[in-house]
């Protein structure tokens, strides 16, 4: 069966460290993989999109990698800040059908 899994429900890290979130999938061949941020009481907000032929994408302190052999994406936040605390969702584009979302990882950055 098709599955998309984010490695943990919650992740706590110290301010200034790099947060690494994992998204694994099985039985999909996605054209894209996206990452969203969701704050409590708000809708998800798009952060980054990476295509199947791209290995890495960066935006300011954010970095996403996409390994189609391992069927895995890693999402990194460097020099993390308390303001980065939120739930992060990965989403697959399985080609010609709507996005499929993971359940999210709740990140807490502790000062």
């Amino acid at each position, binding site marked *: 069966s098709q599955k998309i899994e984010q490695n943990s429900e919650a992740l706590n890290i110290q301010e200034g460290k790099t947060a690494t979130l994992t998204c694994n999938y099985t039985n999909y061949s996605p054209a894209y993989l996206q990452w969203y941020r969701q704050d409590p009481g*708000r809708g998800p907000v*798009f952060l980054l999109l990476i295509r199947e032929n791209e290995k890495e994408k960066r935006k300011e302190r954010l970095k996403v990698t996409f390994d189609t052999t391992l069927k895995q994406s890693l999402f990194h936040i460097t020099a993390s800040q308390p303001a980065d605390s939120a739930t992060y969702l990965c989403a697959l584009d399985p080609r010609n059908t*709507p996005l499929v979302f993971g359940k999210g990882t709740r990140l807490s950055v502790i000062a």
Partner: protein
Amino acid sequence: NAGVTQTPKFRVLKTGQSMTLLCAQDMNHEYMYWYRQDPGMGLRLIHYSVGEGTTAKGEVPDGYNVSRLKKQNFLLGLESAAPSQTSVYFCASGTGDRPQHFGDGTRLSIL
């Protein structure tokens, strides 16, 4: 520029009542989506539309109907509400290239 606006923000219904959730977008997007988000379940697609006058079923369509009479609006209807439909409902819009833009949700409780 409002983006995606959902109406209402909160609602309490009794079992068996009906209601319509409204989603409006001002970005001229072709695609619109309705999701529900429940604890531990992540975002699940209810119905979506790839253009004015079209609708399609998502992962969890039972008990819901939708209409897309105008490009900017996407309506989600509950004909006979059930407690299992208590959830937070998110609307999103996008283009064929993605990503999706989300509203801030409608919190619906069914007693």
